[in-house]
């Protein structure tokens, strides 16, 4: 699948325990565990508690997922409901096809 050794550092911005936030967290965990087992770290930033952090990644939409590693930085917004789209957005699928 993805290149070996690539470590994924992800940051998910949510705002409180809203259904959208919970859904996004669940969807992200599922995708990561399936595709990046052992090679990922997820930081969840709750802007309701840390409003000052919204500025750093120009977060407007909630939920927003940022891929900090591997570069380049990528941004996906929404509940990550469509796995295919997430994979495309993070070039996971693209890369795996290249490798294969």
């Amino acid at each position, binding site marked *: 699948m993805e290149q070996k050794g690539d470590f994924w550092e992800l940051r998910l911005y949510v705002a409180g325990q809203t259904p*959208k936030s919970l859904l996004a967290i669940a969807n992200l965990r599922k995708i990561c565990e399936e595709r990046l087992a052992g090679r990922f770290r997820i930081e969840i930033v709750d*802007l*309701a508690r840390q409003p000052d952090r*919204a500025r750093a990644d*120009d977060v*407007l939409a909630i939920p*927003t997922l940022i891929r900090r590693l591997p570069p380049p930085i990528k*941004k996906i*917004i929404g509940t990550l409901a469509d796995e295919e*789209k997430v994979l495309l957005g993070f070039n996971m699928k693209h890369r795996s096809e290249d490798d294969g």
Partner: protein
Amino acid sequence: MSFPITPDRDQALPKCPSGIQGLDEITDGGLPLGRTSLVCGGPGCGKTVFALEFLARGALEHGDPGLFVSFEERPGDLVQNTASLGFRLPELMERRLLTIDHIRVERSEIEETGDYDLEGLFIRLGHAIDQIGARRVALDTIETLFGGLSNTAILRAELRRLFLWLKDRGVTSIVTGEKGDAGLTRQGLEEYVSDCVILLDHRVQGHISTRRLRVVKYRGSFHGTNEYPFLMDRRGITVLPITSVGLDYAASTDRVSTGVARLDEMLEAKGFFRGSTVLVSGTAGAGKTSLAASFADASCRAGERVLYVAFEESPSQIFRNMRSIGMDLERHHERGLLHMLTARPTLHGLESHLAVAHRQVREVRPAAVVVDPLTSLLAAGSAADVESLVLRLIDFHKSLGITTLFTALSPHGGAPETSVLGVSSLIDTWILLKDIELSGERNRTLHILKSRGMAHSNQVKEFLITEAGLRLLDPYLGPEGTLLTGSARLVMEARERSEEQRAAGEHQKERRRRERRIGLLRARLGALQAELRSGSEELDELDRMETNRLRRATEDRAAMAKSRHETGGKDEHGTER
């Protein structure tokens, strides 16, 4: 905030003074307090400056902290681009009276999957508002979100929520929007902002630009509905609430000198009415500027401030030219009494000209304004536009009791009474300067075509521009009753003078002739008297001689008788003794 929120719902809508010059007059106090106003217009219309000035003025003049959220320009660029407007943004940011927050929206970087909302934006705004206690917020321009996010259904719902949220926060806010093809804005923001919508417009006609502002909507408030011209320069935005103020201004009976003594005499020996409108029209070189300058000079010498709007000459040129005819305008300028405003007519649109003059009048507070020449404005707009401008200018000046003197160029050949735009009915005193061509030279005449409210002279005077100033001479009528000026006048005067001299000489000659005759008669009289005298003397001598003879004869006879008696006793005549 400066305007208290009144709990009484029946009260007029509370306002938040924008601090933008002129806008608060149009909107009867400012923007709706605690609400969101939409400011929209095409690119370069001044939306961003409007929003920034709203915050800067709020901070400077009302101590209201402000948050500026820029979706397009970076804070550094904003500060730089508006440095010339005098808002002192860095200072305000240092004093924590202003925060500029740049939100970058790049569609290419964002993938969307699933449901989302803009809670991140709300949190970010809320945090920024809380940090400085912002009371004013500007979002410039929120429509950029539509370029960055593809789900317009979500966006629209979130925008609606945003405006409600801003209202709940109690901040007075401005959102800007780009002019759209169908509606006021591309994304129909006007649907969400129901309280106040202001449209900015930057029109260029014939390479001349004019900025205009219109309050499209202002719920629950009286507001001017016209298009108002506005300026954008080193003093920020200045909206000119120039409309016809109506006819309820007081008419002054106070008089002001024209600067030409004989002209004052023609106007009941007092001059113009203060606050009246004077038109000086004439052909090129008829002396319009000289007369206008003379009026300005007289007002300044009376210690009053004058605003001189010159469209054709620079101040130094006017100073030099007027110095050559004995007027030192520069002195008044240096003393701060004479304010010069010079601009090429085509520099900007008519409305902008009016706006500049308007602002200058507000700043200078002059007793008199000279516009020289009014007809130059025809280069910047149609006759109808110029007339409308003049009407508003006159009304504005009259409401402030300012005496206004316009000069107007009449074309050579045409009837000068009819060619001066359509403003003659607005004019209180109309002075007509004419060139009269006679005997191979041009000379100037002046007469008062009309002067409302006074018994003015109806004579045509000869108008002289001399090194010592302006002079009016009495009319000189030639043999056929025609007005004689210049050399013709001099010739006629010389001819009359020589006639007089000839008559005087004739008299002298006759007088001398008579005197001579009297002298002769006197001489003859003397001679006759002398003759008379000698005649009388001769006569006396004759008598004396006779007397002597008789006496001697008697003596002789006596002696003879004596001798006879001695001899005969009888005298020889036989007479008895």
